[in-house]
């Protein structure tokens, strides 16, 4: 019983700021700062898109997260497949680079990318953001997929080959369905990391502003309640997606996969 109470206490601690954020989306505040509770209102949800800059930053974030997740998922899945299924020259080296990219502090990643863009005179904007976001999620997808592949029975794939299935058919009909949970978990992680990133984005975005970067900038003058409302919606959407993903395979919880691999 103590264990249960403690776990809930910990979860309460983790969820408290989320509740505060959601609450202040309903704050009937008049001046620009939204830090003191002044009564309940729904008007921030009614005027959700009244701040064109905030709306644009939010849209940029969503598009960026979708694009970079798609690219990182494809590249990461392929690499994860190779690392989990085959022995080949350079496998160890690739593994180390992948792990380094996962473990490298965001700050160092951002700084290194900025150094390169500055040295090569690459103008920073949406394309450089895609490059950066794919980079920091790629490794996570690869590691997640590798963990999944490593747990598969190779006999299934061999059986499919014996039945005359070509490589593409085997991938589509046999491998993909089996690694799908790993791919989904990796994609979810990639999306969550992209949509929340401030550090790398700040370094590589130039004058392209994303939702968290805009909010970080606005904290100096006062975050408008619409930001809380959008943050709450994002939280709800993410929560639903994660719930759907974990519901589909109740026994294979998706999140721990990655840590499982690293801790092995």
């Amino acid at each position: 019983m103590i264990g249960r109470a403690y776990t809930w206490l910990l979860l309460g601690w983790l969820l408290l700021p989320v509740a505060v954020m959601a609450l202040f989306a309903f704050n009937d505040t008049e001046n620009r700062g939204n830090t003191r509770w002044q009564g309940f209102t729904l008007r921030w949800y009614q005027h959700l898109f009244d701040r064109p800059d905030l709306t644009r930053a939010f849209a940029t974030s969503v598009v960026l997260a979708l694009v970079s997740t798609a690219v990182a998922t494809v590249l990461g899945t392929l690499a994860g497949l190779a690392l989990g299924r085959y022995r080949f020259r350079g496998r160890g080296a690739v593994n180390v680079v992948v792990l380094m990219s996962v473990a490298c502090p965001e700050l160092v990643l951002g700084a290194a990318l900025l150094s390169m863009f500055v040295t090569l005179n690459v103008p920073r904007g949406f394309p450089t953001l895609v490059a950066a976001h794919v980079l920091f999620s790629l490794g996570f997808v690869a590691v997640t997929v590798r963990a999944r592949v490593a747990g598969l029975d190779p006999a299934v794939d061999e059986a499919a080959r014996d039945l005359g299935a070509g490589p593409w058919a085997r991938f589509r009909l046999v491998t993909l369905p089996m690694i799908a949970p790993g791919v989904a978990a990796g994609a979810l992680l990639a999306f969550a990391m992209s949509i929340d990133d401030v550090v790398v984005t700040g370094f590589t975005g130039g004058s392209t502003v994303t939702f968290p970067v805009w909010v970080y900038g606005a904290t100096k003058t006062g975050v408008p309640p619409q930001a809380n409302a959008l943050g709450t919606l994002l939280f709800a959407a993410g929560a639903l997606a994660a719930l759907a993903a974990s519901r589909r395979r109740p026994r294979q919880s998706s999140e721990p996969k990655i840590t499982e691999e690293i801790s092995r």
Partner: protein
Amino acid sequence: MAASACGVKGRGKAPDADFWRGKRAAGKLSWANWPGYMQDDQATIKAFERDSGVRVTYREVIEETGPWFGKIQAPLAAHQSIGFDLMVLTNGIQLEKCRRLGYLAPLDHARLPNFEKYAGPGFKNPSFDPGNAFTVPYESGVTGIAYNTRYVKEEITSIAQLFDPKYKGRVGMMSDSQELGSFGVFAVGADPEKSTPDDWRRAAAKLRRQRDDGIVRKYYEQDYVDAVSKGEVWLTMAWSGDVYTMAGPDVAFVVPEEGGTSWTDNLCIPSTAEHPVDALTLMDWLYVPEHNAPLTEFVNYITPVPDTRRIIRADAQKASGKKAKELTRLADSPLVFPNADELARLRRYRRLTQDEEPVYQRAFEPIPRGA
């Protein structure tokens, strides 16, 4: 090193008369500004679009001058567009760098008749941009001291009070090295505009002691407003317009007797702008008092167009109830329309040469960084 030694002086570009040759109005422009520096519904921009037929893409992408400079430096150096035709830069190290590096378009004053006509005399020909060669003011402000009268039971009149051990853990300072340095120089009895490296050393030592004695609770960017309104800090360095707009009713603002810092956020056109003529049109349009008044009514900083006060008074008469009171308060506020006595005590940041800049930065920068 040899190459840099001979190249330094010639780099600052003189206003280039040829810049405007062949440049035509395009009917559109994009503008980079600070968050909160325009009405939430962007009414001023909509009015300009109606008046001029120019379509404006307005972005609040400048969070701080330093990082903004970091973002635009690379494309400007490579003669690439930064995606903006107009931007707002505070006078100071980064503006100086932009001028020196030839990153700004020289202004064609023949196309700025309203600036000539309506800009207040104190806003023309500033020391940081002689002859307004590259910039015209957008809004100005004063750095002084804000204090919460619920906690501070004496009158605050002096910078020395920011160093008073009685306020241990209750003082806020600014993290920007030009702001912090200027107040440090005031505190050791020197004039920031004319300060010497020796003044900087003494000022830095004093500021460092203030930090190490635990008097400073935090170094702020702009988030001091909330902190002083709640009483987390009792007195803090502050910007006039912020206090006017955002602080709670208990917060008072003073220009200290030693002096305060005045700064100007300036409109300027990057040298790689794609629609510079339209940017110039907008600059000029903003100087018509009728156009400027709604903006000043919102941002509450010091406008370069003194006639705006007349319009705001007239608006106050037309309005009723709460709105009328607000506008009267604004028109009467010394924070928005400072009196001559206060203006006389204001100093600008020290203008730094390229050799002085690292010395200055090395003196003050590590202090808010905890080193």
